[in-house]
């Protein structure tokens, strides 16, 4: 039996109970308890082989008002002693058959009667030797015939009084024993119910209950047969010793001994021929079993009128269990049923919580060739409940990725659904092209309009532009993100102090832009990561800073590393979300050019692309090369024609291989004029013909044209012609 450790010192462990004989549970049958209470009815046994002597004795003793039992021989006396409860024996020495001395020796030899005082009746006071023999045989007194009625009555009265006192002592000690038994019963039930408290999952609970029940009832085998959601009848959930059914078989309700008892919800003590065939069972045990099971206790587990299953205890000894055991096991089974029911419901509830929480967080983060993202969510260490922390990330376009994290005050389904609504609303604002500050402002209006006062949430919203190398940040009451530079320097990217959502929707959310470079890592987190009770928040930030400084580069490992170093058991009173973003360098072999926005740059850019395609995409056919050259030159031409005034300005052009595609991009920082003249728009139309995908994104900070051409597949223009 495995060693168990109980953290609760008040709990008596079954291991201790088994090893300490004084604390061994003793189950006293109700009949025995009743007998102990009947001591005052103990009578006087009169033994004489002469009926007239017996009659005389009765006449003398009747005034005492005691129960008188007569026996005409030693044998009769011994039989009466088996049947009756006797306080004192008056025994004639000279009798036919068993004489008084022999009878006394037998009475003394029997444990049940050893303590009963015997008064010998003898005719000859001179028979000293006889009296000595009588004392040796266990007599406590003698009376010489013919006796004085008063003296006899007085002597008997003394013994009756002694007997009563002794009976009182016995009764008291038995009452004590009974009280202890009740206490043990309660403890037994506690031990069995307590097993439920220390286990949150079904397997552990059932194994524990079976172990404890087997120990408490000194059973040689024990098992729990329980209903399952996905299979008919009952199946073995935990067992030790020879199981009554094979571990992989099912007990069908209504069929066989167990099935019938389950349906009838009847507790039964089975011995001998009543035992079901246990041949199908397998010995799962520890080799303690000393022989075949000769008796079984089968008790149904029922809760709120619902059958959960059966507990079955078996013993090698046929007389190991009695009615009292069955009664106690029935009581215990009620506790077990409650415990099992509780855990089943709890497990079901926790599963629901986990499923719901998972459904509220993104199951995968976007893949961006220039960014590595990873996130972790830790539920609160307290009872299973849905938290209000959330994170999300989505690709806005080829360069820009939105990353957000937030915390809705509170827990439970309401916080979770609120969180879900906020997340979806913020996604929508991000996709619409709002800057972080504008998106949070919009979100705050949603919070005020939808949830009304009392709903408080914090949000941190970032847009990372991998091509420009910037991150725009806005936050509403949320801790700022931490940035680790490629060199390992940590700083928190502050924005103006802003209020959480739900406070004042007229306050404009601050926005700040910071540069990010290849090798930088951004860390977003919720306050659960830095806040601990009875500790300054600065301590939490310092701890995070230290952990972040030494964390590995890989974002998945980084998240784990930071959680390991900042979260302790005591600290996990709140749920925690972290999200890490690593900015990667440009793809290997990418072409990046920055040139003056002049016509002379176009042939130069085209020449560089030609060289780059030769080196990096050698498998590209001549037409695709030529198409890409045209498309790229067209995009550059547009920048030169439309983006800038006559002053000096620069533009950027980049080319990258992206799997089986070439991605080209031309971006400027100007404002495009509407196309002029009859040739306006011809360039873009041509680009669309030459590439699979063309996107023109005009923003306040400039315009980016992104083109993508897969190789292998013909471009749209050729497809149409075939």
């Amino acid at each position: 039996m495995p060693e168990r450790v109980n953290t609760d010192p008040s709990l008596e462990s079954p291991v201790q109970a088994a090893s300490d004989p004084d604390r061994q549970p003793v189950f006293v049958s109700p009949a025995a308890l009743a007998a102990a209470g009947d001591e005052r009815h103990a009578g006087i046994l009169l033994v004489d082989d002469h009926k007239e002597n017996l009659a005389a004795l009765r006449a003398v003793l009747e005034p005492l008002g005691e129960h008188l039992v007569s026996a005409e021989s030693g044998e009769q006396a011994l039989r009466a002693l088996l049947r009756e409860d006797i306080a004192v024996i008056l025994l004639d020495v000279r009798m036919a058959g068993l004489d008084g001395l022999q009878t006394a020796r037998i009475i003394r030899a029997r444990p049940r009667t050893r303590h009963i005082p015997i008064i010998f009746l003898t005719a000859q006071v001179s028979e000293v030797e006889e009296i000595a023999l009588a004392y040796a045989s266990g007599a406590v007194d003698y009376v010489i015939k013919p006796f004085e009625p008063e003296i006899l009555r007085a002597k008997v009265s003394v013994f009756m009084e002694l007997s009563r006192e002794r009976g009182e002592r016995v009764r008291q000690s038995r009452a004590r024993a009974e009280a202890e038994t009740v206490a043990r019963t309660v403890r037994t039930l506690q031990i069995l119910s307590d097993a439920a408290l220390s286990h949150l999952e079904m397997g552990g609970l059932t194994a524990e209950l079976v172990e404890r029940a087997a120990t408490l009832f000194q059973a040689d085998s024990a098992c729990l047969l329980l209903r399952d959601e996905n299979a008919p009848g009952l199946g073995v959930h935990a067992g030790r010793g020879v199981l009554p059914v094979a571990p992989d078989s099912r007990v069908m309700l209504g069929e066989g001994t167990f099935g019938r008892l389950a349906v009838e919800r009847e507790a039964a003590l089975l011995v001998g021929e009543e035992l079901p065939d246990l041949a199908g069972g397998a010995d799962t045990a520890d080799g303690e079993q000393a022989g075949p099971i000769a008796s079984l206790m089968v008790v149904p587990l029922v809760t709120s009128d619902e059958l959960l299953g059966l507990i079955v205890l078996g013993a090698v000894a046929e007389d190991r269990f009695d009615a009292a055991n069955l009664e106690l096991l029935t009581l215990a089974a009620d506790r077990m049923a409650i415990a099992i029911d509780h855990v089943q419901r709890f497990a079901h509830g926790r599963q629901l919580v986990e499923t719901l929480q998972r459904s509220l967080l993104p199951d995968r983060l976007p893949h961006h060739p220039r960014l590595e993202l990873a996130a972790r969510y830790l539920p609160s260490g307290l009872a299973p409940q849905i938290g209000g922390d959330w994170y999300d990330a989505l690709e806005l376009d080829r360069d820009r990725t939105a990353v957000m994290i937030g915390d809705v005050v509170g827990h439970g389904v309401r916080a979770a659904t609120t969180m879900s609504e906020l997340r979806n609303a913020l996604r929508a604002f991000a996709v619409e092209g709002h800057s972080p500050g504008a998106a949070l402002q919009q979100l705050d209006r949603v919070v005020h309009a939808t949830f009304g006062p009392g709903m408080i949430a914090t949000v941190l919203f970032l847009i990372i532009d991998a091509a420009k190398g910037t991150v725009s940040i806005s936050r509403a009451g949320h801790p700022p993100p931490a940035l680790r530079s490629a060199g390992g320097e940590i700083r928190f990217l502050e924005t103006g102090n802003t209020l959480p959502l739900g406070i004042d929707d007229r306050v404009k959310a601050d926005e700040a832009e910071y540069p990010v470079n290849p090798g930088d890592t951004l860390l977003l987190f919720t306050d659960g990561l830095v806040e601990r009770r009875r500790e300054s928040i600065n301590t939490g930030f310092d701890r995070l800073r230290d952990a972040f400084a030494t964390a590995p580069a890989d974002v998945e490992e980084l998240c784990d590393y930071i959680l390991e170093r900042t979260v302790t058991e005591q600290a996990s009173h709140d749920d925690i979300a972290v999200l890490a973003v690593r900015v990667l360098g440009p793809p290997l072999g990418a072409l990046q050019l920055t040139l003056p926005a002049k016509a002379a740059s176009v042939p130069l850019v085209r020449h560089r692309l030609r060289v780059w395609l030769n080196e990096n995409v050698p498998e590209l056919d001549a037409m695709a090369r030529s198409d890409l050259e045209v498309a790229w030159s067209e995009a550059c031409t547009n920048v030169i024609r439309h983006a800038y005034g006559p002053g000096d300005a620069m533009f950027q052009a980049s080319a990258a291989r992206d799997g089986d595609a070439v991605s080209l991009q031309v971006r400027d920082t100007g404002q495009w004029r509407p196309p002029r003249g009859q040739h306006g728009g011809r360039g873009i139309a041509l680009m669309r013909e030459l590439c699979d995908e063309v996107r023109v994104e005009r923003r306040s900070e400039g315009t980016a044209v992104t083109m993508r051409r897969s190789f292998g597949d013909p471009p749209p223009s050729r497809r149409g012609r075939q």
Partner: protein
Amino acid sequence: MGGPSGSEPSAPTGADAVPAAGDLAYVEIEDHDGVPVAVISGEVDISNVDDITRRLMTLPNFAPGLVVDLRLVAYMDSTGISMLHDLAGRLRERSQQLIVVCPPGSPPRRVLELTGLMTRTTVVDDLGPAVQAMRHVARDLPSG
């Protein structure tokens, strides 16, 4: 007065030669028995399209029209298309005609096809038929 191959300049289309804006393309005006032929070689884009356009505008006004030979053009984008489109318009105003020589499968031919210029301008595969066609035009014109 032979074929245009005799006066063919070398176009800087090699991958290793970084072209200067000035010598990206060349334009030679040839006379094929009274038919002017503008032979463009090299690359046509925003950096040189104005220079090329100026050269093409030097056409004498007694000619029946202009043949633009793109057989030696390694690169042309929509700026070249716009140029040809404008040229065709100016010639039409003077009752002169534009014929473009551009062999199938060549880079400029693809751009001509994709931009729809083929449907508005006469494009022929080779120089011979272009000159021939222009002579027909000249014969039909009332002689001075």
